[in-house]
């Protein structure tokens, strides 16, 4: 018979309470990415070339900038959620799992920050 309190015995054994929300936002972001992703691919494929002037004019257009902001933010969120699921499935060691998840978060936030700031800079720059 353990002297551990009933509460001490069950702590850490329950669910994280975030699973339903995780499931839902992963699917909502997936639905959003269907039109956004297709727009990005078609819009890029329609460019006559990838010369600096062409690409810069494309990214500087206000409508394109809005769509790019939406794509980057939604894709980064969706990707972060997806990588989390894979890591939780294949990295069983608790310590290593946390390290990989935090590293994934940093990479996603850093990529999104760079992409979003670049888009905003080009959108505002072309107006001047």
């Amino acid at each position, binding site marked *: 018979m353990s002297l551990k309190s009933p509460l001490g015995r069950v*702590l*850490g*054994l329950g669910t994280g309470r975030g699973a339903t929300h995780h499931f839902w936002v992963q*699917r909502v972001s*997936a*639905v959003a*990415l*269907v039109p956004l*992703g*297709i727009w990005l*691919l078609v819009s890029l*494929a*329609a*460019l006559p*070339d*990838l*010369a*600096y002037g062409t*690409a*810069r004019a494309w*990214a500087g257009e206000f409508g394109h900038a809005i769509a*790019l902001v939406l794509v*980057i933010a939604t*894709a*980064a969120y969706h*990707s972060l959620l*997806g*990588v989390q699921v*894979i890591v939780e499935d294949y990295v*069983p060691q*608790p310590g290593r799992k946390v390290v990989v998840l935090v590293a994934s978060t940093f*990479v*996603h936030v850093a*990529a*999104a920050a*760079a*992409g979003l*700031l*670049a*888009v905003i*800079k*080009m959108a505002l*720059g072309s107006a001047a």
Partner: protein
Amino acid sequence: MATRSRPLSPHLQVYRPMYTMALSMTHRLTGLGLTLGLVLLCAWLAALAAGPSTYGKLRSVVVSPLGFLVIAAYVVAFWYHLCAGLRHLRHDLGHGLERASARRSGLVVVVAALALSGLTLAALWHLGGRP
């Protein structure tokens, strides 16, 4: 923290390999690939915002044969993940989960992904071909 090890769900190796399992694994793998693609897209946009000289260095890589190969892989991963994702959304709604139906929709996903990738790459060909 609990010291006793928690029960784990059965893992991949206990299942007989199946065609539909391969589809699901490909969905995850292409998802990981698209994560890398998102990082590359953001790097491309950052280089574009940085100016012509930075962009020029990156562009010579993008239009190289290796760059086109990466773009091609990105395009295939994109269409596969999109088509398979729509199939999964349909499954989440409770439709098409019977064995025959799941196998059929899986084939539709593969054919659609390959066809859409082919169309996109044909449209993108000139970007790789012209320096």
